[in-house]
């Protein structure tokens, strides 16, 4: 295999893929216009050479553009909006413009968007989470693009990151419910594929339960996209079981708020009949009545710190590779001891 070269040209890609340079251009700009086999050949060549398109963009990229790129899953979640807003404000204060792209939880789209941002000329890159396509990491390395991962911590230590320990947060929250006397648990998890935040939260829950000899059975574990409607559906499915859970842990606040809304619709009282928890502590979580028990993630601080991290790197200063932000359990009104435990206590 050829070793990656820093400044591969269009003609190098064309030569390696054995096509004309026009075909390379077309394959990169309008992939649906070239034959699949040609496209694969061009893409393989691009990958192995670490090629980034556009001479002009490359020239631009070699000097400061005062632009930072951020690639996030979606705008359609207030919690990412919080962090992104803080990022934008911090970069703006330092004279940088933030350009944003959303991959909608699709790893291939993320690679494409990141490549486009790099090609357009950015000085630094902010990514969300630690699970990314290896192609993406390779591209960043070949371009020597300063970057920072956010929201999660990279256990390998290979990547600079500012984030939270999602597993530890889940452990805390689960232990709170266990201490209240819950034994019948269910979880409406976020989609775990390509999302280590969702995965770590699920692992944390399982781990805390296992420590007390409790297993999260298959019919009590539902994976859903993060939306109010999914929270509703998840809750409905779980409560239709012959033995409904006494505690439903949700992968984030949006799912939890949806689950509570469904409880209201079904006439199930929260927390008397079922306790519900979220993750993140969105602003609205404390405004609901009863207020949502959740784990507070300091998302504004995360945005500020991620920006500061990248700005320091761009200024050539040394910064700690890993920065963990503390999370905090927020016990509010949606969790209470299960009815059975209350009964047992009364009988004593």
């Amino acid at each position, binding site marked *: 295999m050829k070793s990656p070269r820093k400044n591969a040209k269009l003609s190098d890609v064309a030569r390696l893929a054995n*096509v*004309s*340079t*026009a*075909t390379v*251009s*077309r394959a990169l*700009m*309008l992939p*649906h*216009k070239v034959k699949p086999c040609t496209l694969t050949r061009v893409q393989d060549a691009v990958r192995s050479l670490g090629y980034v398109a556009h001479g002009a*963009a490359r020239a631009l990229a070699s000097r400061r*553009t*005062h*632009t930072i790129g951020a690639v996030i899953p*979606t*705008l*359609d*979640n*207030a919690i990412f*909006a*919080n962090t*992104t*807003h803080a990022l*934008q*404000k911090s970069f*703006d204060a330092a004279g940088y*413009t*933030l*350009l*944003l*792209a*959303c991959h*909608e939880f699709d790893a291939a789209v993320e690679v*494409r*968007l990141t490549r*486009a*941002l790099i090609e*357009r*000329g*950015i000085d630094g890159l902010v990514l969300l989470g630690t699970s990314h396509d290896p192609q993406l990491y390779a591209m960043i390395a070949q371009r020597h693009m300063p970057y920072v991962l956010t929201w999660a911590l990279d256990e390998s230590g290979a990547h600079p990151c500012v984030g939270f320990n999602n597993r530890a947060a889940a452990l805390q929250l689960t232990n709170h419910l266990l201490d209240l006397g819950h034994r019948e648990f269910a979880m409406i998890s976020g989609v775990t594929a390509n999302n280590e935040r969702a995965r770590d939260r699920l692992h944390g829950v399982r781990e805390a339960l296992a420590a007390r000899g409790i297993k999260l059975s298959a019919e009590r574990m539902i994976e859903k996209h993060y939306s*109010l409607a999914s929270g509703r559906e998840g809750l409905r499915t779980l409560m239709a079981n012959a033995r409904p859970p006494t505690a439903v842990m949700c992968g984030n606040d949006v799912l939890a*708020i*949806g689950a509570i*809304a469904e409880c*209201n619709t079904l006439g199930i009282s929260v927390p008397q009949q079922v306790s519900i928890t979220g993750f993140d502590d969105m*602003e*609205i979580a404390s*405004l*609901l*009545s009863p207020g949502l028990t959740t784990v507070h993630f300091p998302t504004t601080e995360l945005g500020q710190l991620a920006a500061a991290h990248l700005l320091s790197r761009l200024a050539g200063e040394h910064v700690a590779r890993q920065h963990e932000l503390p999370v905090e359990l927020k016990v509010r009104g949606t969790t209470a001891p299960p009815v059975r435990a209350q009964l047992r206590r009364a009988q004593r």
Partner: protein
Amino acid sequence: MTKPAAKLIDVARLAGVCNATVSRALSRPASVSAATQKRVVAAALQLGYVPDGAARALRAQRTLTVGAILPTLDNLLYAKATHALQKALDESGYMLLLACHDFDLANEVKVTRSLIERGVDGVVLIGAEHADELFALLADCGIPYVLTWALDTSGRHPCVGFDNRIAATRVANYLVDIGHREIAMISGVTAGNDRARERLAGVREALAARGIEFLPQRVIEAPYTLAAGRAAMHGLLAAAVRPTAVICANDVLAMGAVTECHAQKVAVPEAVSVTGFDDIEAASILVPALTTVRVPMRELGYAAAQQMLVRLDGGPGARVTELAVDLIVRGTTAPPRAIAR
């Protein structure tokens, strides 16, 4: 008799070169020899060849990227419409890049310039009010644009939106119809925000038409945050004569206002009615659910994408797409106590 349209391969055959050379000659003339370039152009002219999308894109150095510039990322206001915009553009092979100006029209010029420098084929803007400099920049660079969330009354700009003023008029009229006379408004910050200004103007107009006084101290401008909605409601509840109805310029402010009422044990809607604007998903989930104006956000994003795609294909310029908005009456509004009794 019409001939079938000439294809790239026909040009290649006539010019005696390969397909790739035709592409190259048309897209980047400097990359082929002058003689080849001349032969290809002559063949293309003779055959009346029109380059297909791919070749045209290459020649025009299209970036297949559209930029959208949002006032804020801080809440879900623009998320749904932006999501729909992105999906529709994606289906046509365009990528969406976003930037945010923080309700600062001078900053909007700066971030738009940055987007254009990075390479975008078109720009989607929010609202009808923008700095003259921004329109000049777009004209100078020949960048097509679409205004969204509002209607441009000058008729000079393509837009996809709705009439914020008429929508606000309907909210005010509804409250008057159910008996409210003591009406206050938590408005958005109107400077540099035509949507906020139009909503306030609509309420003012409707109340004036019904002969109801709209006291200056009953209008509070607040940035679109839950905390600002709470603080504004706090101020209104502290007044010697409390309003019986509070119109909020958006759902975020309304949710903050309702929260403040809960905190002060002021019953909604019995003691005070509260309305929002936009109908974000959370509005229907609150208890009581929020009475608000439904803005068809997905439709708005989709229609903006369609209009942008037409313009990117060289289609007509200024076009107005007006969307319908509906008043959604839910649990936070009721007749004032004196009437209900």
